[in-house]
């Protein structure tokens, strides 16, 4: 274990410095979030929600706040039509009221853990995307996070707005933590991609929350390939009738990488639909721990929920834990989940080989197909093609044995 004395304790005064040019309400929330962080214990092997992970040799102490490096890209044509794509701090002045509402609604939700609280307290860099009512984006908005320990992203889609946001993380910091809030207004349609492509030495924490108003639709994709330890909480709250969410996840892990995804499909209103597909391909001694819950509230009748976690073990030392949960308090529902763990299917291998493919090529083809299902479900080839390219070099290592 790392000596705790080598870490400078983060003082509350750090928040005073951060919030000096910010609205007072934000400073109060930062301080409350920091208090939450201090209350929650440093995770260890026995901490509930953490015990599946091997934390040995991983330094989970909070880093000192530092500025983030975040690049934002959006079409000029979209900006002129009213799309706001901005760093978070300057946006506080121009769009303070709208942001305040979103930030207050997300403030210290009960699922907020130690690192999400830390990000809320100490974020320095951040991004805001606001699509006004009726806005239709022509191209995706890109948020590229290159460095910095704490950040915050807010995406707001107004009534009937349609847009795609791709958030990519390439930090090399020892530890980074971020929170993301996606607010989908009535009838809005949002595609959101979260790419975790950080340095292989990094511990990466992400807490993503989405709320969907009536008839809104959110298609999200979490793509994990970097970091040594990656813990993500992905939560979707279907608050308005007719809201729909497709939640996709894809992990390719190798070496000793650990991916820990926690998902929530919250059906809070009737006639809502959610569909979740999280897949992981695990090579070497990598490890995936998936925990997902579907909650259907009392009164959320005619909810339709599906949840699937598929794990492909590519190596003897790879491990997968999966815990798909249901908590159902309404009766007129359709709710199903499934989970599988296993190696590349023998029959599929045999079939591919009978077509003349070498064994290793056959295995690669099958793993590629395993991923392809997720990309196709996401439905935006322009976005997923680049993800596919990221996986390609890793696929080369896959073998049939």
């Amino acid at each position, binding site marked *: 274990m790392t000596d705790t004395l080598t870490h400078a304790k983060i003082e509350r005064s750090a928040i005073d410095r951060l919030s000096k040019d910010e609205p007072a309400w934000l400073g109060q929330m930062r301080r409350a979030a920091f208090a939450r962080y201090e209350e929650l214990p440093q995770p260890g092997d026995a901490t509930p929600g953490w015990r599946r992970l091997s934390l040995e040799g991983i330094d989970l102490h909070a880093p000192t706040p530092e500025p983030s490096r975040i690049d934002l890209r959006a079409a000029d044509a979209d900006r002129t039509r009213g799309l706001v794509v901005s760093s978070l701090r300057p946006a506080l002045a121009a769009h303070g009221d709208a942001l305040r509402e979103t930030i207050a609604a997300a403030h210290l939700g009960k699922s907020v853990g130690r690192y999400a609280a830390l990000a809320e307290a100490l974020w320095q860099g951040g991004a805001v995307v606001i699509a006004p009512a009726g806005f239709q984006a022509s191209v995706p908005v890109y948020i590229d996070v290159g460095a910095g320990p704490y950040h915050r992203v807010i995406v707001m889609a107004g009534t009937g707005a349609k847009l795609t946001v791709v958030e990519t993380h390439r930090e090399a910091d020892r530890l980074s933590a971020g929170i993301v809030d996606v607010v989908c207004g009535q009838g809005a349609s949002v595609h959101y991609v979260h790419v975790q492509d950080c340095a292989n030495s990094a511990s990466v924490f992400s807490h993503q929350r989405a709320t969907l108003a009536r008839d809104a639709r959110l298609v999200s994709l979490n793509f994990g390939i970097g970091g040594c330890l990656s813990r993500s909480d992905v939560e979707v709250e279907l608050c308005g009738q007719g809201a729909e969410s497709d939640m996709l996840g894809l992990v390719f892990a190798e070496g000793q990488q650990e991916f820990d995804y926690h998902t929530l499909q919250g059906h809070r209103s009737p006639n809502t639909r959610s569909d979740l597909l999280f897949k992981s391909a695990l090579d070497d001694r990598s490890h995936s721990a998936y925990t997902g819950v579907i909650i259907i509230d009392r009164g959320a009748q005619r909810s339709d929920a599906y949840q699937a976690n598929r794990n492909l073990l590519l190596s003897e030392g790879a491990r997968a834990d999966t815990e798909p*949960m249901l908590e159902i308090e309404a009766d007129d529902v359709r709710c199903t989940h499934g989970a*599988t763990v296993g190696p590349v299917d023998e029959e599929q291998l045999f079939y591919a080989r009978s077509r003349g493919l070498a064994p290793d090529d056959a295995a690669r083809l099958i793993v590629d197909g395993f991923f392809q299902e997720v990309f196709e479900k996401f439905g935006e080839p322009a976005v997923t093609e680049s993800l596919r390219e990221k996986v390609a070099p890793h696929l080369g290592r896959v073998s049939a044995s």
Partner: protein
Amino acid sequence: MATQPQTLVDKDYKYGFRDETTNYAFKARKGIDHDIVEQISQMKKEPRWMRDFRHRSLDIFFAKPLPPWADLEALGQINFDDIYYYMRASDVEGKTWEEVPEDIKRTFDRLGIPEAERKFLGGVTAQYDSEVVYHSIRKDLEALGVLFGDMDTALREHEDIVREHFATVIPPADNKFSALNSAVWSGGSFIWVPPGVRVDIPLQAYFRINAESMGQFERTLIIAEPGSFVHYIEGCTAPTYSSNSLHSAVVELIAKEGAHIRYTTIQNWYKNIYNLVTKRAIAQKNAHVEWVDGNIGSRLTMKYPSVYMMGEGARGDVLSIAYASDGQHQDAGSKMIHAAPNTTSLITSKSVSKGGGRTSYRGLVKVYEGCDGVKSNVRCDALLMDPESRSDTYPTMEIDSKNVRIEHEATVSKVGEEQLFYVMSRGMTEVEATTMIVNGFFEPFVKELPMEYAVELNRLIALEMEGSVG
């Protein structure tokens, strides 16, 4: 439908009568401490090692917290100081039905034990309160060398076998309730099947609780020597009482190489009983263990029959149903531990929640590193009968080996309107149609039961479905 008050449910409870038994030969005081444990052990004239084991277990019980993941709202209502931990209704232990005391017989008559015996019983061990009062073994079982009796007698007459196997599957420290049972256990069944012997007739025991605030802590140990087979059936009903009772059994099964054990339970405890049971089997090489487990009664049941597959080729099956109505929580499931290659497990769980009842499936499939060729399939189906009820599914899979095939699937839904419409179009009322559909839902379980149990279960479900519609 409005939530049904408890009093209405009471009226429907089939076994809700109470015997006038008051002449308990021995009645311990309420509460638990080392003195009570010492008294129990002395009354039973137990060997030193068992007495020490009880005292050790009691310390573990005191030290262990309640499981944090449990339904603590319900568990928290148990007052451990307000429970009798040992009591016996009679000092008589009959070999034949005629020798059993009259008032106890009356209770069993109403449960249909003699009838069951006439039809197919190989042997009967009927537990009344904490002590076994009735016991018979068919002569051919004796001739085969099969030992079937109560645990207390087994400890006296077959101490070597008991000592070798007792608490080797479930140590006292496994959980708070196994520790409690280990400290105060009394009664339960003991079965030992010699190598290569097949017991073709199911062995059967009925258990009852019949004293207010009395806990029942039976301890069952079944040992199947290599190549043997045995089917054990345990059914539970309990009479009406208002204050909470605790039932906390420990059941250990040991299936040695190539042996096959089937264990069938239907628990229909009265709806104020806490049924907190630890059931676990060890399956050695090529052994096969099946749990057939029905949970209909009790206030809260926590029961997760497990199979630890320790030898290559071992197999574990669990087939379970759970039914929860107003005020009930059936927290049941199964654990399958694959600790050897080429082991196979199958879990099929079905649950129905009605009138504000809650069912939870809680399970684990664990595959240790280096265990190739493991196959496991878990299937959970839940039916919700009304908007007040609740269903949870908490399965866990921990897979540390590559060449395995692990599948889990669960669904939650209500009775299909199309199914209902179809059956009603054939002239049935909505209640009849619903009963038929629920019976059909439980069918894979029911068809694994002996005839009398199947008939009784179907009746129980029909009774429970009354008033479930409209």
